[in-house]
């Protein structure tokens, strides 16, 4: 039996014994509860309750914090990675090792000398748990702070482990830096994830005028989109009067007076003046989200390579005063305007027709239809 399981069993036995002891004391003492003052009984019950709570806490710690005790440890390139896989066979173990090796190699290639700083905890751990008899698994990647959990539809593959490491490293990158915490980082180090087209579509159909203007090519609006979201100034920064109805419908308000709700009803019904009157009482939801802002981080890393990651990981006192865009432009080694302009080109280039659209699709469909037509003439089977 492994160490955590022994500890868990021991705590469970101790907890049971304590409960029995309390019950026996209460039940078997001469005269039972009648022989004790109610105050004394209450004090004993409270004491038992406190000890039970302490035991429950200790039990929870064993389960939640001490559980990922390593079964195996890998040290590659100066990085230690512990992993364990409950119910995994040797073939799964081989895949985990392969995934870890590939993931660390990719991280090393993408982050260069910044890797040890990025993985700045003593060790990461992987935990693979098979969920059922048909091969699906949960992959947990822990780095001492938070967990990243990914449910797999199939037995663990090396690519899953690799993706898990890269995802968690991207998250760590934004968690480390105050200015970047409002954006998603999980895809920043994963070239296999391409959120660009989705981001472009979200901006072009955005309910804020700033988002739509950015899609139309106004780089000043793109700057607003990519900066930190400021909810208190949102109505004036991101929206135009014709957006106010959407703001009123979807935003949150602390107003509870009937006048507000009457105006809101008129606004929803189409009265623009009512919308303008109450829109300042509304806190709109973030119209862009962390994914949109996260693409600027991914783009800065694309431009600057591993030097950009090293620059983001490095902490300088002067960085504390920089806005996110300045920090990312500095990391990418370009000016802010240049970074925003190239981000715009990169994002909206994703909307250009991919292979398989237009003429190639026509040709392939006609070719498949032609093949079927030729096949259908081959025999007569009535």
């Amino acid at each position, binding site marked *: 039996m492994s160490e955590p399981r022994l500890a868990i069993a021991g705590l469970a036995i101790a907890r049971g014994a304590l409960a029995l002891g309390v019950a026996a004391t209460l039940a078997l003492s001469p005269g039972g509860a009648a022989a004790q003052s109610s105050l004394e009984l209450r004090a004993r019950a409270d004491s038992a309750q406190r000890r039970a709570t302490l035991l429950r806490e200790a039990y929870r710690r064993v389960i939640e914090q001490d559980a990922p005790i390593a079964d195996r440890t890998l040290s590659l390139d100066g990085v230690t990675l512990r992993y364990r896989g409950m119910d995994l066979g040797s073939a799964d173990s081989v895949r985990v090792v392969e995934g870890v090796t590939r993931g660390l190699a990719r991280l090393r290639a993408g982050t260069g000398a910044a890797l040890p700083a990025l993985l700045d905890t003593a060790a990461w751990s992987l935990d693979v748990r098979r969920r059922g008899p048909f091969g699906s698994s949960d992959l947990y990647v822990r780095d001492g702070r938070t967990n990243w959990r990914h449910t797999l539809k199939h037995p663990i593959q090396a690519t899953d482990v690799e993706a898990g490491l890269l995802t968690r490293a991207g998250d760590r990158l934004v968690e480390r830096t105050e200015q970047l915490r409002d954006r998603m980082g999980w895809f920043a180090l994963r070239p296999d994830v391409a959120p660009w087209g989705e981001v472009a579509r979200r901006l072009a159909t*955005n309910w804020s005028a700033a988002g739509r203007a950015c899609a139309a090519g106004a780089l000043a609006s793109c700057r607003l989109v990519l900066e930190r979201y400021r909810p208190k100034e949102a109505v004036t920064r991101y929206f135009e009067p014709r957006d106010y109805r959407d703001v009123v419908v979807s935003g949150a308000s602390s107003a509870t007076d009937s006048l507000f709700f009457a105006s809101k009803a008129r606004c929803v019904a189409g009265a623009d003046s009512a919308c303008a009157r109450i829109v300042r009482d509304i806190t709109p939801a973030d119209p862009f989200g962390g994914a949109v802002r996260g693409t600027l981080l991914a783009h800065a890393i694309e431009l600057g390579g591993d030097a950009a990651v090293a620059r983001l990981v490095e902490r300088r006192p002067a960085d504390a005063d920089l806005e996110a865009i300045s920090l990312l432009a500095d990391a990418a080694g370009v000016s802010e305007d240049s970074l925003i302009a190239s981000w715009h080109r990169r994002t909206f280039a994703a909307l250009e027709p991919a292979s398989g659209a237009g003429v190639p699709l026509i040709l392939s469909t006609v070719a498949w239809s032609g093949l079927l037509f030729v096949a259908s003439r081959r025999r*007569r089977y009535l």
Partner: protein
Amino acid sequence: MFGQILYTQVKWSRAAVAVLSAIAFVLPALLWRAVHQGWMREYSALEVMRGFAVLGPALGVVAFFVGFILVAQAWAADAATRHVYALSLPIPWARYVALRYGAGALLLLVPTIALWLGVMLILSLVTIPESLNAYPGTVTLRFLLAALFSYSVMFALQYLSGKRAAYILLTALVGVFAFSLVLGLAGYGEVVDAVTGALLRWPGPLAVFASDWMLVDV
């Protein structure tokens, strides 16, 4: 000879083609109306996208049925007379099949034109925001291609397997479903994903159904 075959094709399938053409014509306006209950006011980009979101998948289904009906009606009419008409023609079977295929394929244009008219009608009623573009030609072309592919699959199935076509189709559908279910439960879901991807991604045969069918997009 092609004129005669086309005449019989029109005669046998005109009712079904008329119904499907009417559906293709009204579908864009009908689906918009179901989402927005009107078309006179100015809509935001997101509302416009939402109004046409279901149109693509719905047109894919209609395209499939157009192909299916054109094959099934012609075959059923021929089979009712035990193919006497086809076999009495002074041409080889392969040529007859080619003419029959061509006649049916030509009729695919009727619902396609109806769809184009319906699409132009709804686009004239709805104001498209400046950040969006309308793609009536692309959607209509996709519809034609999807109907052509669906027609070709059904035609090949029918003319290769004769009266057993329905059984073969049913068996194939059940077989594919059972196969993917078993593979998925056995932990080989990625195999199913890979096969599905190969069929749906260009240059796979079903790529036209999986391609972008948005009437209005960025």
